């Protein structure tokens, strides 16, 4: 079990979250080329080291979080709210 420090809810067990995929993928425009879409949908890096991934706090605030996690040690280096507007609001409220 890993524990994720949700910026909105606090430190919680990963059982409250669902993994929602690779956060390093940049999805192309809807009318981009087939190659661009193929890369975005099917090709994934599998780094031995730091990686960014999305986790959604489904049994909490419901926010998608961008988590920086080490793929070998499972250490988590940073957690931020994926939506920049939401992140700003929460950061301001914390001040």
């Amino acid at each position, binding site marked *: *079990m*890993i*524990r994720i420090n949700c910026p909105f809810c606090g430190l919680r*067990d990963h059982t409250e979250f*669902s993994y*929602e995929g690779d*956060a390093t993928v940049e*999805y192309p*425009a*809807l*009318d*981009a*080329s*087939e190659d661009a*879409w*193929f890369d*975005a*949908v*099917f090709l994934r890096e599998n780094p031995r080291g730091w990686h960014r991934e*999305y986790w*959604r706090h489904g049994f909490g605030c*419901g*926010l*998608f979080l961008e988590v920086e996690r080490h793929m*070998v*040690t*499972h*250490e*988590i280096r940073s957690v931020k709210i*994926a*939506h*920049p*507007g*939401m992140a700003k609001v929460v950061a301001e409220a914390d001040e």
Partner: protein
Amino acid sequence: MSGYRLPRGGRIDRSRAVSFTWDDTRYMGFTGDTVASALMARGERIIGRSFKYHRARGIMSAGVEESGAVVSLWSDARRVANVKATQAEIVPGLAVWGQNAWPSVRMDLGSINNLFGRFFGAGFYYKTFFGISGRGTWEWMQFEKLIRQAAGMGRASDKPDPDHYEIMHDHCDVLVVGSGPAGLSAAAALASQGMDVILAEQDFAVGGSILSGGSDDGGSASDAWLASTVEDLTAKGVRIWSRTTAFGLYDHGVVGLIERVTDHLEHPGDLPRERCRIVRARRIILATGAVERPFAFGDNDRPGVMLASSAATYVSRFGVAPGKRAVIGVNNDSGYASAMTLAQAGIETTLLDARASVPRSLASTAREAGIDVRAGMVPVQAIGSRGVRALDIGRYDGERALAEDRLPCDVIGVSGGWTPVMHLISHKGIKPAWNEELSAFIVEDTGIEPVALAGSAAGHFTTEAALKGGERAAAEAIKALTGKRRTKLPEPVTDWEAPLQPVWEIHEPDRKLKCFIDPQHDVTTEDVRLAHREGYVSVEHMKRYTTLGMATDQGKMGNVVGLALMAEAAGSTIPETGTTTFRPPYTPVSIGALAGDERGTLWRPTRHTPMRLEHEQLGCKFVDAGFWRRSWYYPEKGENLARAAKREAKAVRASVGMVDVSTLGKIMVQGPDATEFLNRVYSNPFAKLPVGKARYGLMLRDDGFVFDDGTTWRLTETDYFMTTTTANAGPVMLHLANLLQTRWPEMRVHITSVSDHWGGLAVAGPKAREVLDGACPDIDFSDDAMPFMGVRQGHLRVESGQDIPVMTARLSFSGEQAWEVMTPADYCPAMFRALLTRVRAAGGVPYGLEAMDCMRVEKGHVTGRELDGRTTAADIGLGMMASKKKPYIGRVLAGRPDLVREDRPTLVGLLPVEKGARFKAGAILFPQNESKGHGLGHVSSIADSPELGSWVGLGFVTGGLPKWEGKEISAENPIDGESTRVRVVSPHFFDPKGERMHG
């Protein structure tokens, strides 16, 4: 008879006798006894039988490492198999059973396997798959059946578990695992600094190795120190959990523990049998101790051969003498204390020290106590198949020894060194390093983990060193948690008088001895060499080939010996050979405890629609659909499912019916960019949907396949009410949330799941308008006011005369003229009653899922059976819903060559050629007389259509209608040997032009 109860001593309560049974015979023990100590006190020697050869197994240890005395406890449904007798407390009424033996462990006919031992070497099962060269596997397979009968361990009960379990969650500053000298001193140091501490102990008594020492040692870790420390810890609020095993160490300071709550209670009451405790600790100190290990010599598996320290534990902790004459074989200093304990209890004791130069002061103290200390001598072979009678001993030259003397004895204690218990830190993938001096794997560095090892788990094998190690680990934890710098305490050292001399196996010249390293699984030293000869060079492979360390004790005693022998066989060193990886659980864990309360409906909740009671009053039958209990059919007198559904479907087509559609997923999509958002997520255009209209939408996944379908109602300029299929309510919500939060954060759209907030009924049939006309004082249901796909909000007048808020859309799934009427969940019962009265008045009926499904198949409408994740819009005949003008999710990849191939299986209707013939969903479709290979496609849905008077089906056929329309193919169900000729037709069996729903 061998062991006996000593007249005094031990940490048992002699005033409280406990009666239990051993294979139906009544025995007495004392409170504080384990099953092993109580049986030993009664002179029982054979407690178990080994896995393969059924050799007699006695008590080999006094703890979790036990590899011989493995038993079953309790009876019937509460029976637990493969329990270590050395761990189980005796309780009044406890039933203990020998296992893997017939008729009993004392007299076991299965031991005939022993005679065939030379066939059953390592990799026996593996080899049976290859068979005898040139003759195939048949004979081996027959042979295997016989042995399978005889091999095995205890049998689990096949009845449902009558006990309950629970999961509890905890937090603390520091979790200390193990309550020996190191754990206690660490906990005391932490508590004195105000730390929130949990101290977990797997035994039923706190104290660890202190409990095995002499009670009047007077040393720094005496009984008096133990008592005052426990008192002090309790006063400072330290949570001391006995009978609680830390079975797994996980990420970020999470530890899983199992507490055995009631097994020691005569009257457990309502308490759970076991409790799974999940602790989140900021720091963890593993003071898990060390396990003594044996070395291998001839027939070292005989009852009476045990670990030297365990023999002493029976004397000092349980007041039981393991025998009358003992021989202790050691290669290190620790065995001297064990021998002293036995000698002081009046047991005639001989000590064989493999080392030529013995520790001088220890040896002289031992001799003063009457122990016969023999330097440079080792055990060679134990004598006595049902229990040790004597021991052949010889002079050790560093590898071999020739038996030169026979000592009569009934107990043999062995000490080949100590193995720190590093299982928990190993769970985190941390590899230990070999320490030559201690002849043990030690973890020096735990890296980023908030974990430290202390005491003998860290290689500090003497009590003084363990106490200091505990304090040091505590100081480090305090520093990590508070930042307070304290004087750094020195690393403690194990100050043995003479260095340990590694001994793994005693060879005798010119004679092959049967030397065991895994007594439970019958793995011998020869098996390890055989594995090496057969090419197994990795220690992980050797383990699996020989099954060394794969029994219920997981090789806690013998693994290191096996590794050393593997290294020896390969001509390499132990560090080069490495160790196997430990994985959770440390000791076996009940599945029930891991599940806790999460069973039945607490694991799998039941969802009812808000109209549940109204359905039940009508005698509705329900069907499971995911978590939902959906209304299935409403039987009238004597009707079964088929007849009721047929009647309901006919009634809808003839007059009118109503069906609960509350299970549909419902999502409010709101905001200035809502229109643009919908236009991107649906494959068909939504930009020009006017307010007051609904539209059927098809949603694709990024990869171009169909994801979901449903209708979306435009309530205002910026408010949409989206419905999804029942099954995809959650996934669609997640998909939309993902898009808005990660991919298109600039879009000003808010989505809210309202699936549980609204319930709905569909009123369908030629008389649907008659039912609704006048039902809502503020809604005009006429064709002009509400054409097909029209949406209105207003009120429904219910029986009480009140008006309840509703929104309604003219939509049809059945193919009839129909409206979906939605109301907030709390109003649903009132809506149901109001509309049912009107439906009945028009001669209609309530109908269920079965009739609805039948009608949608007649119309060729798709559901999850067709939208199975492998179909494109064109495959299901909805290619025209894929816009060519706008970009949308899935459009690009839906254009991949394989997704637009002309020979893709596409949706068709299927009619049996012989009227009345039946076929099944899931059947494979083949051209006539060519039923081989993968076929043309499959049948996805079927229905017994009242309109067509025949079974009808939907399915997918390569090439689809253009290639096959009107042709006969075959629906094959090879499992049941059924074959039905079917004709390929349009999937729109009924009212293909849709005149009825538009009318």
